[in-house]
C-alpha cells in the first residue's frame, strides 16, 4: 500500500549535522532528471530577490524563504515526513510515534513535492520554498513533472491511497485503481460538505491511525472494513474515490 500526501508550504528548519542533499538517496531514481531540472530552475530564480518573489508569490516578510532556496545545496536534511509542518503533518505527529509505526510511514508514505517529485517519507531533504504553481519565465513547471510522476505511480503494485490535493494530483496523475480520498463533514442532517482545515486534519489523523494499525492493506474493501472497526468513517464514494467523514468541530 502506498499513501500519497501533499506537501506543506511551511517547513521545519535544520536537520542532521553535516548532512546535505544527495539526490542519489531519494526514492524513485527515474525522477532524478526532473529533480535536477527543477533544482536548476530554483537556482535560476534564486539569483535575484525580485525573480524569487515573483515566481514564488512571496510577501515582504518571507525573505527567509529565498535564503532557504539559495542554500539548498548546503543545508542540512531531515526525513521528508519530519521536514513538512502544518495541519496535516501536525495531525500525524510523527515525533510521538513508536519505532514500528514510524517505520510504517517510511515504507508506505510518499509526499508529493513540487521540487523533488514523489518523495519517500524517510527521504532526506532540505527546507525549501517551491510550489505546484511556481512559474519560471512565465511557464508553470507542472508539465515537467506530470509524466515522470505518473510513470512512477503506474509501477506501484498494490493499493494506492491518494490523499493529495487536486493541484498536486494534477502534477502526477494517479494510476487507474488508485483511491482518491475526499474529506467531508456530516453536520447530522445528512448534508456533506468539504472544509479545508478539516480536510487536512482528517487526512493527518487517518495517516496516523494507519501507522498505528500497521496493516499493509491490499484492497479497498479490507481498508474500509478495518476503518469501521477502528471507528473511522471511511466509505466508498464515486468510482475511484473514498470519502472520509469527519465531525465538524465547533468554531466559537
Amino acid at each position, binding site marked *: 500500500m502506498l499513501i500519497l500526501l501533499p506537501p506543506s508550504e511551511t517547513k521545519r528548519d535544520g536537520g542532521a549535522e553535516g548532512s546535505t542533499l544527495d539526490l542519489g538517496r531519494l526514492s524513485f531514481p527515474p525522477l532524478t532528471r*526532473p529533480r535536477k531540472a527543477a533544482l536548476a530552475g530554483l537556482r535560476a530564480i534564486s539569483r535575484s530577490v525580485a525573480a524569487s518573489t515573483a515566481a514564488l508569490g512571496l510577501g515582504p516578510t518571507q525573505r527567509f524563504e529565498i535564503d532557504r532556496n539559495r542554500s539548498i545545496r548546503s543545508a542540512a536534511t531531515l526525513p521528508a515526513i519530519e521536514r513538512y509542518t502544518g495541519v496535516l503533518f501536525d495531525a500525524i505527529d510523527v515525533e510521538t510515534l513508536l519505532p514500528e509505526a514510524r517505520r510504517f510511514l517510511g515504507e508506505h508514505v510518499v509526499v508529493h513535492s513540487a521540487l523533488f517529485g514523489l518523495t519517500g517519507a524517510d527521504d532526506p531533504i532540505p527546507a525549501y520554498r517551491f510550489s505546484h504553481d511556481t512559474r519560471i519565465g512565465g511557464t508553470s513547471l507542472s508539465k515537467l513533472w506530470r509524466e515522470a510522476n505518473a510513470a512512477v505511480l503506474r509501477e506501484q503494485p498494490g493499493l494506492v491511497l491518494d490523499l493529495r490535493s487536486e493541484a498536486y494530483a494534477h502534477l502526477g496523475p494517479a494510476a487507474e485503481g488508485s483511491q482518491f480520498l475526499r474529506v467531508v463533514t456530516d453536520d447530522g442532517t445528512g448534508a456533506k460538505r468539504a472544509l479545508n482545515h478539516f480536510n487536512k486534519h482528517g487526512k493527518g489523523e487517518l495517516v496516523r491511525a494507519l501507522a498505528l494499525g500497521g496493516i499493509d492493506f491490499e484492497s479497498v474493501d479490507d481498508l474500509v472494513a478495518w476503518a469501521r472497526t477502528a471507528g473511522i468513517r471511511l466509505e466508498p464514494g464515486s468510482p475511484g474515490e473514498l470519502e472520509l467523514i469527519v465531525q465538524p468541530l465547533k468554531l466559537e
Partner: protein
Amino acid sequence: MAEAEPGVLVPGPHELAVSIVSADQEVWSGLAKQLIAKTTVGEIGILAGHEPVLATLAEGQVRVTLQSGEVIAAQADDGFLSVDHNRVTVVARAAALV
C-alpha cells in the same frame, strides 16, 4: 504569457528571443532563427510560432542558429527548456558555450 521585463529582448514575429542560463549566470542571450535541443522525449527543433513547450533536457548540446546563419552551441546539463510566445529559456545546472 511571459511578462516583459526591462532589458529583455523582444522577439519579432519571425524570430526567437533565446536565453540560456546556468545556476549562477546567463550564459548567452540573443535573437535567433532556430533552436535545437535534446530533451528526454527526443530532439526538438524550435522555430518562431512554436507552441508552448516545457521539457526536461537530456545530456547534450543546445544549438542556436542566428538570423545570420551563425550557429552557437552550448553544453547544457541538468535542466529544462521552456518555449512560450517566441521566448525560449534554457535553464541548466551547468551551461557553457562550446
